[in-house]
């Protein structure tokens, strides 16, 4: 039976010639990831299993990014617990303040994921690495604990939806608009339990960073994973960062899909997801004046250097509107440094933005930009659920870095083309 990209990776890691949708399998893991919120629960379960050591100290990764730098005493206790665990088990890839970045920007940057890998992470946006042709998916803390102990995880083999991309994106339109457009089309459970596989000539018209953003939000359509076909850009990106050999999997010609969508990238416009679901998408021909109080540019979805560059293009020589707080969060130390060296930070600060150390902070309503009742934010983050960034009566509008930057300048949700 013909297989999808995802099914081929899973079969290879289960030691099987073939698998089919619905089959329950046990697979070998190439990487197990956790953060400062999910790892403490996993560490407790790991100890309960009675495991003496992690299955492979080079394949376990912990990143202190959610409430780090420690937002309060309880957060400090959680990070301390992770630090002590990683010291005890000699975990190679433990990233603390000073080295850490937002996990899903950090792992690709450090070359910790290559095409064909199977990665589980106790963070729902672990699906990001599908951008590099890996199977990666979010799990909970118990799965993380068992993964750390055994190097294995159980999966139900998913069926898939195929997205055939063609054409090129227009000015100020980026990966974020593509994925918001898709979620608007299929809904927040449109890909529930399934893979979203991205193929076609349009893939090569997207940068690796656009693909990371698209795969990152596959979970917002309910998907198990999002995955892109590997091309020359992927290979160049990975080879620059890792010496590991890898396999680029392609779906069989006659693989079966639950649905196939053809998407012409040139027809996609700047898209905004209105409260309180990522599927509530609108384009600017449907958006009236909506005043805002805050802009957040960052997160695992849109904290890449390319995202900051797009925001800087718009903010250069302009000022953030009165009564708008603009918060910019480079996703990793390397991105931060590059933004410093290339003058982006100067542009942001002169425009009236603040620039923060890497953290997930405001995206999940942790700290560093919490909203009061009645306040509205335009954010390049990934969720706009009730209370996501603060009070239950606050609102989050999800958008691209270009739209967020234009909105900061305009003081209302704004199309970058309108400036």
């Amino acid at each position: 039976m013909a297989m999808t990209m995802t099914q081929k990776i899973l079969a290879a890691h289960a030691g099987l010639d073939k698998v089919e949708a619905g089959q329950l399998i046990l697979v070998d893991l190439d990487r197990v990831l956790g953060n400062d919120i999910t790892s403490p629960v996993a560490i407790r379960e790991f100890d309960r299993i009675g495991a003496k050591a992690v299955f492979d100290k080079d394949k376990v990764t912990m990143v202190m990014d959610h409430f780090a730098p420690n937002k309060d005493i309880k957060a400090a206790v959680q990070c301390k617990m992770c630090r002590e665990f990683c010291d005890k088990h000699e975990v190679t890839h433990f990233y603390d303040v000073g080295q850490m970045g937002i996990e899903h920007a950090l792992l690709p940057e450090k070359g910790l994921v290559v095409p064909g890998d199977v990665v589980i992470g106790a963070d729902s946006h672990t699906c990001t690495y599908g951008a590099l042709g890996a199977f990666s998916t979010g799990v909970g803390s118990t799965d993380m604990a068992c993964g750390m102990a055994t190097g294995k995880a159980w999966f139900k083999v998913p069926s898939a939806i195929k997205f055939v991309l063609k054409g090129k994106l227009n000015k100020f339109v980026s990966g974020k608009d593509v994925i918001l457009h898709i979620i608007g089309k299929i809904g927040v459970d449109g890909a529930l339990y399934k893979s979203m596989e991205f193929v076609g000539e349009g893939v090569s018209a997207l940068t690796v960073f656009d693909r990371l953003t698209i795969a990152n939000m596959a979970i917002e359509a309910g998907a198990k994973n999002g995955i892109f076909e590997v091309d020359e850009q992927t290979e160049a990106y990975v080879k620059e960062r890792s010496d590991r050999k890898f396999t680029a999997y392609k779906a069989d010609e006659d693989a079966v899909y639950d649905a196939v969508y053809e998407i012409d990238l040139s027809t996609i416009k700047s898209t905004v997801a209105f409260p309180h679901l990522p599927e509530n998408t609108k384009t600017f021909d449907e958006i009236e004046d909506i005043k805002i109080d805050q802009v957040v540019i960052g997160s695992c979805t849109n904290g890449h250097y390319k995202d900051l560059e797009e925001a800087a293009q718009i903010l250069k020589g302009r000022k953030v509107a009165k009564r708008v707080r603009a918060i910019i969060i480079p996703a990793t130390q390397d991105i931060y440094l590059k933004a410093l060296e290339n003058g982006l930070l100067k542009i942001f600060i002169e425009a009236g933005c603040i620039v923060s150390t890497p953290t997930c902070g405001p995206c999940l309503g942790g700290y560093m930009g919490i909203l009061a009742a009645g306040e509205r934010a335009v954010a390049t983050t990934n969720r706009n659920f009730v209370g996501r960034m603060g009070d239950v009566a606050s609102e989050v509008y999800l958008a691209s870095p270009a739209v967020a930057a234009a909105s900061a300048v305009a003081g209302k949700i704004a199309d970058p083309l309108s400036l």
Partner: protein
Amino acid sequence: MKFTGKSIKYGDNVDTDVIIPARYLNTSDKKELASHCMEDIDKEFKSKVCDGDIMVAGFNFGCGSSREHAPIAIKESGISLVIAKSFARIFYRNSINIGLAIVECDEAVEGISDGDRVEADLDAGVIYNKTTGKSFQIQPFPEFIQKIIQNGGLVRSIQVGEIK
């Protein structure tokens, strides 16, 4: 596995941010998590939930974050079973892994109102609404998952050598 309790009902897309808001994730203490369970969607939940109660919801229950704190908070608050039209996949896995019983059944969700007395027998594959007298058939879990549940979760499955 048999369950009995009153129904506490919600709509579609109940996300993990309303089940347990991230501002409380600076702890993994079960009791503390339970004390904030559902508070951003239902301020009354804490006062009305009794041991054994059954949560009923629409499509895509538990969507969003991978936080295992969500099923932990629900279980610790006394809920014995969640019946939904569908579950977000990470929540589904997490529930099985920590031993919170869940089941998908469109008809039962349609046929149960908030506050109804509900009985469920997952082995027999039946949900019974005592208030209305209607019953609903459910699909049993695949054997592999049944074993994890019977073992009392994934950790126990590894301890007994079911998963190596």
